[in-house]
């Protein structure tokens, strides 16, 4: 039995077609694996660096339900949502939990005139332009769309891949939020005349290069 198996195997190995098929299979799989690996370069989904101050989003967002824009003041206005300046922390913490060693770090920073050096979690490459206001204020998207369930995060981590493919997928699927926005009226009219479904971001040029790259 074993001998027969061995002989068969040897026969198979001797078969040129099969041998080359196996080699090709191996090469293809290896190529796929390395390509996948290469595509993964620079993708940091799940990145959750330790921050200089153990600030808990779970507590502030999840438990106390503080609005994101209370601290991230730029989120509806401009490109950056912004990391809160220490004086925003002080709005509450000049009275609340002053004794906590973590909050004392803010006091030390203020006293020494030494800004707090947070570690950036969400990094887009310099060649991509992303504007928060377009997505939050105009598009009406919820922060969790891109940042995940922040309210459950003790330490903030990058929830989505933030790759271009991920951006594009969303632009293909998302309906344009044109309600009560005179900017889109003309486009909406044109769209309803020619197409059946709702107007997607893609339909108004949301996949064009120079929307994000310039």
């Amino acid at each position, binding site marked *: 039995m074993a001998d027969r198996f061995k002989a068969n195997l040897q026969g198979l190995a001797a078969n040129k077609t099969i041998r080359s098929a196996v080699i090709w299979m191996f090469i293809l799989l290896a190529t796929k694996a390395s390509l996948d690996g290469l595509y993964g370069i620079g993708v940091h989904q799940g990145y959750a660096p330790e921050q200089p101050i153990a600030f808990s989003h779970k507590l502030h967002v999840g438990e106390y339900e503080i609005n994101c824009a209370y601290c991230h003041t730029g989120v509806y206005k401009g490109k950056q949502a912004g990391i809160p300046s220490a004086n925003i922390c002080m709005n509450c913490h000049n009275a609340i939990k002053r004794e906590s060693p973590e909050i004392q770090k803010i006091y030390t920073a203020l006293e020494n005139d030494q*800004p707090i050096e947070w570690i950036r979690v969400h990094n887009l490459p310099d060649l991509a332009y992303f504007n928060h206001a377009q997505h939050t204020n105009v598009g009406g998207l919820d922060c969790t769309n891109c940042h995940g369930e922040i309210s459950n995060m003790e330490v903030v981590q990058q929830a989505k891949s933030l790759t271009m493919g991920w951006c594009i997928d969303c632009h293909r699927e998302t309906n344009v939020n044109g309600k009560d926005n005179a900017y889109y009226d003309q486009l909406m009219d044109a769209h309803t005349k020619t197409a059946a479904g709702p107007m997607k971001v893609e339909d108004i040029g949301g996949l064009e290069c120079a929307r994000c790259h*310039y």
Partner: protein
Amino acid sequence: MENTKKRYWKGIEELKNDINVVKNADREFNIDNMEGGEPTHRRDFLKVLGFGMAAVTLASCDVGAPVRKTIPYLNKPLDVEPGIANYYASTFVDGSDVCSVLVKTREGRPVKIEGNKLSGITGGGTSARAQASVLSLYDNEKLKTPVKGEKAIDWKSLDKEIKAALAKSKNVAIVSNTIASPTSKAAIAEFTTKYAGKHIVYDASSMSAIREANATSFGAAVIPGYRFDKAEVIVGINCDFLGTWVSPVEFSKQWAKTRRLSSAKDGKRSMSRHYQFETGMTITGAAADYRSSVKPSQEGLLLANLYNMVASKMGGTPVPASKVEVAYLDKCAKDLVAAKGKAIVVSATNNVAIQTLVNAINGLLGSVGNTIDFSTPYMVGQGSDSEMSRFITDLNGGVYDAVIFMSNPIYEHPEYAKIAQGIKKAKLSISLSDRVNETATLCQYTAATSHYLENWGDAEVKKGYFSLMQPTITNIYDTRQAEASLLTWADISGGDYQQYLKNNWNSSILNGGKSWVQSLHDGIFEAGSTSEGANNALAFTGNVASAVASINSIKSGGIELHTFENITIGSGSQANNPWLQETPDPISKVTWENTAAVSQKTANDLEIAQGDIIKISVQGSEIELPVMVQPGQANDTISVALGYGRTAAGKAGNVGVNVYPMISTVNGNLSYWKTGVKVEKTNSGYTLAQTQTHETVMGRQAVVQESILSEYVKNVKAGRFEPKIATSEGPVRPYSISLWNGHDKKNHSWGMVIDLNTCTGCSNCLVSCQSENNVSVVGKKEVARAREMHWIRLDRYYSSDADITDTWSVGGLSEMEKASESPEVVIQPMMCQHCSNAPCETVCPVLATTHSSEGLNQMTYNRCVGTRYCANNCPYKVRRFNWWKYFENDDFDFHMNNELGRMVLNPDVTVRSRGVIEKCSMCVQRIQLGKLEAKKERRRPVDGEIETACSQSCPTGAITFGDMLDPESRVSKMLEVEREGRAFHVLEEINVQPQLNYLTKIRNKDKADAKWQFVHTDEDNAGAHKDEEPKAHS
């Protein structure tokens, strides 16, 4: 071009059919291998590939995310939101170049200068130098602390030592250029009162004679307000009023107002007529309807002749003067007389006799009170040559114990050697400058001054027109503005110049007219002159006879040297600015140096040619310069730009040759020209870094379309070339058949209209674009290799009707001289045309350049693999390739090679790396931002809200940007009228359907003088294309 027999050419090389032009005609980047090294071989490809693979493998080892920090404010200022720009009003001042500006700051650092539309002087226009000034802020060769001798010193000790020394001084002199700031002048006045001092004012390009002549002619020693917008006939005599003279941005705006035409039914079909008589070719001469070249020595006689012609026609008394033969002079006199009361004659020459004659002519013509307004004089050019020369004598006589320099006379004054000797006699010498410049090296102390963007201040360019300056960033280094230093040393208002300024404004400027805060917000306060509009038709009381006598004594003969300020470098104070150094001179197209411009005839006579180095010597001083053959240059003259040849400006600024020492004093005034110059060829084979011959029109001659006013009045399509292509159904317009499906534009269609009639070539757009779009500086060597990176270029075409096909016979050569003697010039801004059928898009193998649904041709740098197929296929040659990495590279040691210099980069625009193509994006970042602002407010964008960098600050409004789908936009309205009028697409015949439209150049020239015969008759044009309507261009 194709509708006339006129021949267009871009430089003498092309006119001569130079071997290199022929050889390189089809090569975009024409000089390779300048170092003589081996080119890369094909077999090196695998080695490079191998390295590439290794690099990728190494990069893949980096699995963890790079740690990038994000550092918020401790205490965020209320008005700063990261990512959102703030704008502050300020004022740029550089000699005559005064612009009210808005400074765009991002996260607290100034990144861009924009024009202030509220200004009644500039109307939102700026100059190239104003645009570039933001880069000078981040010049890392500036002083970082005050210095004593060569050692750094702290302010406290410096102040203590200087105050002690001042207290012991009996006579203190403050030397400066014109100070247009009323508050600064007040501070200096208080200082000089306290220390028994004297304020001596001089200017590198002196206007002393104008003031002196006006004192005797009209009893007012001022530079009067000029109103070119009220003039129907403008005559400029060696006066670059569109480029550098008195108030060029304002004059450009005024001049353009008289040149704008409209093809609408009842549109404006009249324009001013502009004569220019000049030695070297300037942008003002290029823009003129009639231009003649004159030698500097002829200028006086020309004016005397002009005076006599005007006088004889108007019943005045001519004075004896020898005849001078200058083309168009008779015609000019006739037109001037006909336009009595609406004429203006200006000259920049610093000679009292010449200015007296100018005044006499203006007096006869009734210009004073109409086009020349003595009630609103200019505050620039206050320098006095006689006071300066008295100061130099006194300084050497040991009269002054202490001398304080607020300018750089050792570089920019011809008597620099005497000043240098005199400084040693003073017990205390201080330089108030931002670097240890030529003057500061001789002074004991240099009290490091800060940049105007770090300063408080004001300017009154014209009487009653005030503009404020406020800090847009805190001092980058340990510097202090000059006024604060003076106040500190004199113990006035605690050295607090901000408070001093505010007090002065409240007490003597605003007079309750506007609040301080509002003025600071607006940046301007324009109450106008109190006597404005009053009868100021002053009578001419000067002595013409003695002026003519003085002119008759002017000697001519031999080769004459003529010096001038060019529009980029000016007097040289901003010489260490790589943007300005790399901006091509709009006429000569030379970058990074000054040249000896000679006419073709003079070059032939002297047996010199372009590429030679010549030694120019006159009265003991000599300079060596490369030769530049300049069409339109007066024969037997050499023009050389001032402002170059700095020795202590810095890495970028110490280029070219200093010609200030060649200036001499004649009849008490600085004279900027000389006779009897000796020329000697010392070397040859030099390559000028000229951008001129880098592209050719490949025989497509309809790039520029122009005509003359009388033809335009008859037919608004005059000068238009309307190509037709052959089909089986006969010739049709190119746009009526197409291979392409076109692009569906539902939302916006961004486009531009560029008026060739009002573009002067001032280069403001070029620098503005460079600043907005992080365009790299590549340096002289790379420019010579045709690798400059500018996204917008100002194509300058010469044209003439002389037969220049014969270049070998003696007769042929003289025809060529004739052709280049007085060519007409057209300047055409050329950038990406955003073609609807873009040839670049179809050849890109990686789809790095694609089309947007808003009419933009998009360039995606990160997709580009650098095949350059697109550049090859671009009919307009506007795509630029990054041959090198221009940032953080010691071979390109400009601002992008140091941390401070990189602060000027626009954070919204990617800095391109080596190996990718870039080109005009129509400022897509500004479009996107403008759209977002509108969306946030739930409305459509309003026309004018979104502007490109080039259109925003164009002084003449020659560039209009807007949405061609918005029927209310200016571009739509213009095109509606001009599509069947002056609007044309460049290279319409190749059916690329650009988004950019040009309006034909119309010259106000008589048909008899037009330098071409018309091929198309009027009937041809009138009957053309009635049957087939052109397809919509958008």
